């Protein structure tokens, strides 16, 4: 009976993840077929357990039958508290997964997690900077391939008069802009993301960021741009989603000790969190 509930819980949980699309908040969709197959595997085991349970209710427990199988771990679960422990433990992910909301990584986490902004201040770790704001995918390619991809991206985006950093272009577009900010000065760029504020920016400045996923949520990084508004933005709350359009320029950003591209906003408006708050890197 307990087993039936647990297995049913898992089957339901995986089905829910796929039905609502929440699965994309946990893992890279490239591997979604694995968890999709779990709906059927768990469903089957759950039905099997149900049939077995109903049958066991109908007949007196058959000891001969039990001798063929089922011996391996039964002794682990023969006392009520051990049973409680096993089933209680296994039910945890089902219960928390179904009932707790998905914590889409937001700026509270940026501060609390390993790659967070306070790290920028202690500049001992010079590499950590690249995981914030600026996507750097050169690690994922060998040198020649990366150069090739870089130049083809540069060609692609240089042709455009205005660049819209939507889901498809977020990683490639942003990376190209960070790699060749000079080529894009004066161009129109549109970006959408959540608002983040550090101590060292002006009252009319904000960061507009999005979490990006390379493989799964454990390796999520935060990417985006510094944005310069015509108005004082001090009353805009962190985590608000915002869409901005502006002209690209570069500025010396002291914490990074380098010039970074930033946007001089021409228009902006508040926006709602997109259905999928993460961006994924497109491999092509």
């Amino acid at each position, binding site marked *: 009976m307990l087993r039936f509930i647990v297995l049913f819980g898992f089957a339901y949980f995986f089905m829910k993840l796929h039905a609502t699309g929440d699965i994309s908040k946990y893992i890279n969709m490239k591997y979604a077929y694995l968890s999709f197959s779990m709906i059927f595997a768990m469903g089957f085991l759950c039905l099997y357990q149900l049939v077995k349970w109903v049958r066991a209710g109908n007949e007196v427990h058959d000891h001969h039958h039990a001798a063929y199988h089922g011996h391996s771990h039964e002794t682990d679960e023969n006392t009520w508290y051990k049973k409680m422990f096993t*089933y209680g433990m296994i039910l945890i992910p089902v219960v928390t997964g179904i009932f707790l909301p998905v914590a889409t990584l937001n700026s509270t986490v940026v501060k609390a997690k390993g790659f967070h902004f306070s790290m920028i201040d202690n500049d001992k770790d010079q590499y950590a900077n690249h995981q914030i704001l600026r996507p750097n995918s050169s690690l*994922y390619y060998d040198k020649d391939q990366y150069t090739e991809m870089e130049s083809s991206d540069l060609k692609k985006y240089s042709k455009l008069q205005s660049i819209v950093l939507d889901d498809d272009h977020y990683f490639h577009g942003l990376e190209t802009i960070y790699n060749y900010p000079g080529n894009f000065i004066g161009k129109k760029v549109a970006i959408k993301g959540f608002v983040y504020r550090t101590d060292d920016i002006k009252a009319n400045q904000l960061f507009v960021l999005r979490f990006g996923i390379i493989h*799964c949520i454990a390796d999520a990084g935060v990417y985006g741009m510094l944005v310069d508004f015509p108005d004082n933005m001090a009353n805009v709350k962190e985590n608000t989603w915002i869409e901005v359009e502006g002209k690209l320029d570069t500025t010396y950003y002291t914490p990074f000790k380098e010039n970074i591209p930033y946007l001089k906003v021409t228009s902006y408006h508040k926006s709602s969190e997109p259905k999928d708050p993460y961006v994924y890197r497109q491999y092509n």
Partner: protein
Amino acid sequence: MSVIEKGVRYAVMVQSLLQMNTIFISIIIEALPFIVLGVFISAVIQMFVTEEMIAKVMPKNRFLSIAFGTGMGALFPACECGIVPITERLVRKNVPLSAAIAFMLTGPIINPVVIFSTFVAFGDSWKMALLRCGLAIFTAVLTAIAISYFFSENQLREFVEAKLHHHGHDHEAHDKPNFLQKITGTIDHAIDEFFSVGKFLVFGGLISAAMQTFFRTSTLLSLGQTKMAAILIMMLLAFIMSICSEADAFIASSFNGMFGTSAILAFLVFGAMVDIKNLLMMMHSFKRKFVFSMIGLIIVFVFTGAFLI
């Protein structure tokens, strides 16, 4: 502390807990398909493979049997937690301990899925994938050889053995099960095993998620200044993060800029052999002393191997 400050702290705390839950769930979702596959393979071995069959194919010679175990590991599409129940089953079926361990250590690394994901994660290059396989074989073979000298018995936990003996007699007393009974027996076994292994996955996942949420990886990373320290740090990180070997290459490649090949390689090999969740599973199946000696050996061999590259 003002009321507002308290409120903010509370909100941050709740947020961190939700965050931890999200990491936890993503570990579970990633690993579960491989656990299910693992318990099914284990159950099939239990029902369909007899000790005589294994005795027939298993070479008697110590080194040949280890080579055989390594080769078998290469055929199994398992990850480091799914393979533990399979290994336990093999040892129970009288596979020599050293061969089973060689199997357990290579299985999660040398298989098509893992090799392919490593290939993709490191920018479609074979270098990392091949180095990873090489170091895995090196570590697995040397660990298994050392084990074959130090440990003569099967090293299963006593109560597991006692149970086996008891049931061994039961089996003799009854007729052989027919095919259908074998099939239902397989499913029953798989479900039993799922529950017995599942609790360790959940427990390990919780610890790992908590450490990732409340422990700053940056502090850890800043310690890895020398090559030696970097290797050790990455091994520790692999242990804590408990990422499935099918998926860890993508995480490892994100450390590529920070650490050298040696440290990344140590992460890829050590993490696929030992981590929090599979440690709990191994301790459930095998004697503690044995598990710790084995991990000691693995640490030494992975470290030396990675250092020399």
